[in-house]
């Protein structure tokens, strides 16, 4: 019997936050996949744009700025409660998490309501022409991400009130905020593509 224990790991922690943990890497992988989808969808938008002289084509009005801009404000503002909840999670402060998660959820809900108005103010339908198809797809993709993360946040919020709880769940709350940052950051270039690109001819 030559195998002898040389490293005793029994005192090491049983969960971890951020890039130490497995789930963070899984989340990062999802972001890389989805980020690439967004980049390629934007590529498709500009590829179609390259085929026509004026943009939007056929003298259509570009999307109205109002709701898109309000929503960008809502999204940027939502970074703060998410960051605050993230910090609460890392401090394992259940009390503050129970305040923070519902606030994050309220921001997501507000955003989704305004998103409905955004679709209505695009001034084009998805089946009118290829430009409409591209704009609806970009906005639709982002909305799917928001809706998914909103459900995710809601489930976590309920769990934080009802349990069963263990330390690992704090890491989940932190990773949830991490994903939300991605959804917010990806929106900034998308706002540029959807709202500003049609105004720069």
């Amino acid at each position, binding site marked *: *019997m*030559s*195998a*002898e*224990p*040389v*490293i*005793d*790991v*029994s*005192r*090491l*922690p*049983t*969960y*971890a*936050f951020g*890039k*130490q*943990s*497995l789930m963070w*890497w*899984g989340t990062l*992988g999802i972001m*890389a*996949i*989805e980020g*690439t*989808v967004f*980049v*390629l969808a934007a*590529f*498709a938008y500009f*590829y*179609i744009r390259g*085929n*026509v002289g004026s943009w939007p*084509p056929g003298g259509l009005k570009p999307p109205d700025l109002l709701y898109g801009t309000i929503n960008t404000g809502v999204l940027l503002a939502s970074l703060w409660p998410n960051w605050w909840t993230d910090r609460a999670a890392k401090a*394992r402060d259940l009390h503050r998490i129970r305040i923070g998660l519902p606030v994050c959820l309220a921001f997501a809900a507000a955003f989704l309501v305004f998103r409905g108005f955004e679709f209505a103010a695009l001034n084009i339908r*998805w*089946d*009118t*022409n*290829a*430009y*409409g*198809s*591209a704009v*609806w*797809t970009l906005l639709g993709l982002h909305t799917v991400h928001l809706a998914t993360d909103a*459900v995710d946040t809601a*489930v976590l919020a309920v*769990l934080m009130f009802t*349990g*069963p*709880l*263990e*330390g*690992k*769940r704090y890491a989940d709350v932190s990773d949830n905020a991490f994903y939300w940052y991605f959804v917010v950051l990806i929106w900034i270039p998308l706002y540029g593509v959807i709202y500003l690109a049609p105004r720069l001819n």
Partner: protein
Amino acid sequence: MSARQPMDPTNFEPLGHSAERERLEQTWSTPPGIYGWLTTVDHKLIGKRFIVTAFFFFLAGGILAMLMRLQLAQPDNRLLGPDLYNQIFTMHGTTMMFLFAVPIMEAMGVYLVPLMVGTRNIAFPRLNAFSYWIYLFGGLMLYSAFLLNIGPDVGWFSYVPLAGPEYGTGKRADFWAQTITFTEVSALAVAVEIITTVFKQRAVGMSLGRVPLLAWAMVVMSFMIIFAMPGVILASTTLIMDRLVGTHFFNPAEGGDALLWQHLFWFFGHPEVYIIFIPALGMMSSIIATFSRRPVFGHAVMVSALVATGVIGFMLWVHHMFATMVPNAGKMFFTVASMLIALPTALQVYCWIATLWTGRPVFKTPLLFVLAFFFILVLGGLTGLMLASISLDTQVHDTFFVVAHLHYVLIGGAVFPLFGAFYYWFPKITGRLLNETAGRWNFWLFFIGFNLAFFPMHQLGLEGMPRRVYTYPEAMGWGGLNLLATIGAGLIAASVLVFIGNVLWCRRRGALVGNNPWSAGTLEWATTSPPPDYNFHPVPVVAGPEPLWERATGLPVVAGLSDTTREVLVTTLIEAKPDHREELPGPSLWPLISALALAALFVGSIFTPWAVVWGSIPVAAALIGWFWPKKRETEEEVAEEVPP
């Protein structure tokens, strides 16, 4: 450099500690019976299942190929009609690329990577179970459509406008598009699991420089999946939307563009070739090292070459579009990149030759398949360089020359190493050796049959025979070479039958050969063959890339991992120092339920867009059920919890 003496891995599997082993057995085992079969999260069971399923699709795709060869064996043949022939070549390509090649490479990774890096299960084991189910359902859906005579018929790259709403009537192209969606979801999930496993669950001491080349290859493959598959996600989704809800992405009359399809598809489609090829390179390295009795020459060069191949693989896609009106300056760039990618492959070939040259090669079946790679892939690579030339490519575009090229690259570059890998790792999976005589028959029939089948196609292509025609008139003079190709295909079929017979016979009656029959050096051989449910006990610590060759006695080990929960050690990214322990989830029915719900959504969306809306409710419910922690399990974990 002299060869090193392998250590006896049985030193490493101590016979004692039986109480501890029993507890581990209980903790990590899969429940018995059908329930266990449906709920298992063991990467070895899922990996085996993945391999067997992908092999069945390989057989299905092979039968379709045989039907095509029979149809083309003589001019003016009436065995298959044009419509069925269209479905068959589409099904053959789609099956081989999406249901066989990519899944089986991932499957090998699912089985081998956790063992090679010395951990007890793959990261996200339930996601792993889910990825198998979703892959299975996608394949079953495609074949159900085919058997109902509504299989796709527009080629494996489904070009618009042929596949668009105007010409591709019915639901055929939609079945193709959704098959792609199923396999993408599965592939992306596996890619994330493999990267996380290699980055964070390596054995203590396995710094990035000591990661085995096959594990590196699997990581590069996974990164390519992550960045390439979104191209085809977007392509197949926009295609279905054009067909179902009236978007105009590919409709030139409303500002869309058919070439956009080709860009999106080949942005995925070319990297796809390397997604298949790169794991095969890793298998080559494993087999060559073991059978040369020395580590692969130039480990760092090999890793850099794999990464370089992965990166350059993304800069080639337009060379599939040389026959379109892409600007010439753009085409030139892709010509250069297409030639450039030969360099990292050549570097690896030289390193392998150096390894074989300075080692003591043992010519067993796995090595034969590997040596065939050199011959066939070099020929395929040379025609690849020819096709990188715009003028030559334009001349032979859509002819059998391309068919010959792609089969030389894919079969020579991936399927031959894969068969070598089957022979090499079969004793790991079953504890028994495949028969060597049958192996040699398998190899020679395949090698001769392959060259007979595909070499004449170069000539047929140069003579102008287009691909995807169901027959040709006698006056073209293509009959003789086509008959030769069909005879070759028959030999390949015979060789595959020999392989199946060999596997069926030897899985029960093959020679029992102990834990490390090839005296290999990497960690997957440091445990019993077949491995126990918990893979390793105790968990090893390593000090070099071929740990079993580097110490005459047993490896140092880790102590203190729980034997009553499914705990794995998480290590740091670069140096693989112990970081923390994490409990992986156990068997569950939720991955299957989630996969069923998602499959219903995907299949439904072929027929109505509302399937996406209503179908998302059961999907969300299943995913929440999957996530929601169980009270008893949580309490057990809290009892053993050590906060960071």
